[in-house]
């Protein structure tokens, strides 16, 4: 784990309220898809704590995130210029367990701010020669960040204004071959809850990347926990953010 003073290289909108930021990384770290970093802007943002964001791409001593304007930190970040500096604590968390895929088809499902890590996973799997299926859901056509989506993305809109009309879970249901697939998803909790019900129904392996309020982002404060079926809690920043969906006590979150 290192705390690196990174330089912003690019910071641009990709859809309404969605930005993409590219920034420098130390050459020595090679974050995995699903891992995240924890940001503190060098300039005042009106907030105290660092904020966790997933990598959406990594390479050549740089990394990228896709972030949504939600509150003060993200609004402040959106005002920053190339050359400004942010402190990034990284790499955090476990990443998606791609080794489990074997010769099954990885199905990647993204909703909202979950798009970043899923895109990174998509790129990595492609590079390994796998054939991932990418499903991404949006509220409406106007919110789709076309510039960052691979051409073969199955795009869904809740209001049917673009692509598949309906949510990602419905889209998934309409795909033929469930048996030979493994699910990887990141998005709003209701989406991931629905996906894990779906996975149970068809006895699919399903891995979800969860969100939680974080204190330390590195496993020390016990602030970021989720309840698990086996009793007690797991830390999203350390044992997660990616969990086997079957482990999570969905009824309590």
């Amino acid at each position, binding site marked *: 784990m290192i705390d690196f003073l990174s330089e912003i290289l690019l910071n641009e909108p990709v859809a309404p309220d969605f930005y993409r930021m590219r920034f420098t990384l130390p050459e020595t770290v090679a974050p995995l898809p699903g891992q995240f970093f924890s940001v503190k802007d060098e300039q005042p943002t009106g907030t105290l704590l660092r904020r966790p964001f997933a990598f959406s791409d990594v390479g050549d001593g740089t990394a990228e995130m896709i972030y949504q304007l939600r509150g003060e930190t993200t609004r402040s970040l959106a005002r920053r210029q190339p050359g400004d500096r942010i402190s990034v604590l990284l790499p955090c968390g476990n990443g998606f367990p791609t080794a489990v895929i074997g010769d099954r088809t990885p199905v990647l499902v993204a909703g909202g701010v979950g798009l970043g890590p899923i895109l990174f996973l998509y790129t990595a799997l492609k590079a390994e020669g796998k054939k991932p299926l990418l499903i991404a859901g949006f509220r409406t056509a106007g919110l789709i960040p076309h510039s960052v989506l691979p051409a073969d993305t199955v795009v869904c809109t809740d209001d049917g204004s673009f692509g598949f009309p309906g949510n990602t879970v419905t889209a998934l249901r309409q795909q033929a071959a469930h048996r030979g697939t493994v699910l990887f998803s990141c998005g709003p909790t209701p989406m991931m809850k629905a996906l894990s019900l779906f996975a149970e129904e068809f006895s699919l392996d399903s891995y979800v990347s969860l969100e939680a309020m974080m204190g330390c982002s590195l496993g*020390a404060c016990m602030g970021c926990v989720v309840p698990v079926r086996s009793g007690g809690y797991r830390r999203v920043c350390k044992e997660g953010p990616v969990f086997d969906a079957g482990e999570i006590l969905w009824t309590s979150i």
Partner: protein
Amino acid sequence: MDIDLKVKIGNRYLPNPVGTASGTFGYGDEYEGLYTPGKLGAVYTKAVSLLPRDGNPPPRLVETASGILNAIGLANVGVEAFIEKKLDYLLSQPVATVVNVAGSSPEEYLRVVRRLNETAVWGFEINLSCPNVKQGCLAFGTDPRNVKELTALLRNETDKPLIIKLTPNVTDIGAIAEAAEEGGADAVSLINTLLGMAIDVKTARFKLTNRTGGLSGPAVKPVGVAAVYNVSRRVRIPVIGMGGISNADDAVEYLLAGAKAIQIGTGNFVTPGLCDIVYDGIVAYMEEKQLHSIDDFASLLRDA
């Protein structure tokens, strides 16, 4: 210049005044690589209780203006797993391992201290001040008589440094500190978190499942400094100060107020290498002001 950073607590010396506040640094291992060994004087561990505790249901954390509320609920592995899995790492580091002890009865405090007294831990910090669990802790910590009795009970059990951690949620923190001193404590540490609450108005729900939480971070620094100033004028034992330290100046402020050592809590979350920065800053300040030991800080303080 000749600078002595050692701090005497009971019959032992902390190598330097910089420590990490209980509950914010785990058992040290998670922060490996983020600080320079030797610059961190003491790790005050996450609270250790007799049995493992799951802690409170999430959400457990919420950010407030320049602060955070936490309701972790003393989630910890329990004393046996601590000894088995966590202690070796800590003992392998050049720091004083101070175990923060929590219990829901005097008996429980006693058994944890007794068990750990057999190990090579440096000393104990007795948490009489956690606002996040129903029983024990805070209840003990607000009554001088209880504090004195419990301190005496534990004093009887160990010769290692015994530090009593105080809550600011009282009318007269000086009286509680005096009770700890009378009970035989080697030091007091303060402040633990302030009782607080946050409500999400959009949903009209409590932001913490536990409803209330403990407030820490820069927001509480003035309260911590005032408490340290007041307590250090009431007791002869050393005072360990904390609450909102987020840079070297904040640490120096506590030392000027009368603390002999300091702890960094929430600040670790924002700046994981903060203990290095604080260590360096304390040394630089001592050089600039020609201070030879930590005891010299208090005499520097002047009226406005």
